[in-house]
């Protein structure tokens, strides 16, 4: 019961050139939940943690540092 109510906070840096944000999520949230909470589309972002790409079903932990890379075409 307590675990369900517990919140986690992750630090998110979006590239290119976006300031860092702290996002609170329910305990047990996954990468896909983070994108949904931020109002972002899975199609438009690649998510990285500890320098590795993480899939949308990867669980998040309190204090995780997440880097979002925008999929941008044109150039």
């Amino acid at each position, binding site marked *: 019961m307590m675990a369900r109510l517990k919140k986690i906070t992750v630090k998110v840096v979006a590239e290119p050139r976006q300031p860092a944000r702290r996002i609170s999520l329910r305990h047990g949230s996954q990468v896909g939940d983070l994108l949904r909470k931020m109002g972002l589309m899975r199609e438009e972002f690649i998510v990285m943690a500890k320098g590795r790409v993480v*899939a949308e079903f990867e669980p998040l932990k309190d204090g995780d540092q997440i880097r979002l890379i925008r999929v941008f075409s*044109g*150039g």
Partner: protein
Amino acid sequence: MNARCDFCSGKARYFQRHSGTRFCGRCFTKSLRRRVWRDIGRNRIIADSRSIVFAVSGGKDSVACLDIVHPLGKARKIQMAVLTIDEGIRGYRSEGIKRARKAAKAGGLEFHVASFKQEFGADLDSIIERLGSPKKACTYCGVLRRWMLNKWARELGSDRLITGHNLDDEAESALLNLIRGDPARLARSGPEYLLSHRKLVPRGKPLRGVPGKETLLYDIFNGLDVHLGSCPYAEFDFRNAVRGFLNRVEEDRPTSKSSFLSTVDRMSAQARPLFAGTKLVECSKCGEPTVGAECKACQLLGSVGLL
């Protein structure tokens, strides 16, 4: 949860929503290469080619395209070179050129840079100044870049110009052509190149079936150095609205872009007989191939006093 790759049981790094497949980086790379090589064979993209020029901007798509196609060209002993167009966009293009040069060097390929300034006497930034607004930046940039790519690829002696256009680009272009009411252009689109002219270097788009997200994943999994910045003029392009719309549809219904593009390809194949009389001729001003008397590049250059 520690999800595993569906092929090797390594840690899953990517979930391909449209197929329901989980991939580790290595199996994703193998799968993507196989898919692109199959499309290259199916659409005869480099069949009978002796000399390929890769148009590389240094961005995620063109660098991935070069990395995937290069081994095929090497195995077939095709002569290859890399061509980058420097449009002259302050604070943006130089980063891409660095990456393009690095990608060419990694493949042991000749590297050429051709600039707007050298070719037209003005870079894109000064063309925008002449226009007084950045709203049409992408129109000028796109038309002039295509004109230069063809001319330079031909002058470099190539018989194929390979670009990094991906599924997102192609679906956006198809929808833009429908919105603009341009059935003639739509009829000319598709995986095969239909119009021919002795001065036109046939183009190939090996990544036409690959979503932009997957080309960037390929770059990351393979440690390729790509320019991630976005062009300062891109926000003014109507294509942005179309891109956002298609991404929202894809988010709700994966495979939407590919099924839309294949529907449009079938429609354009049906529409081709209506435009069968379309012939390429030489532009009355520059001599480059065009469907009208004066090519679009000359029209645009004339409109800003550069011709």
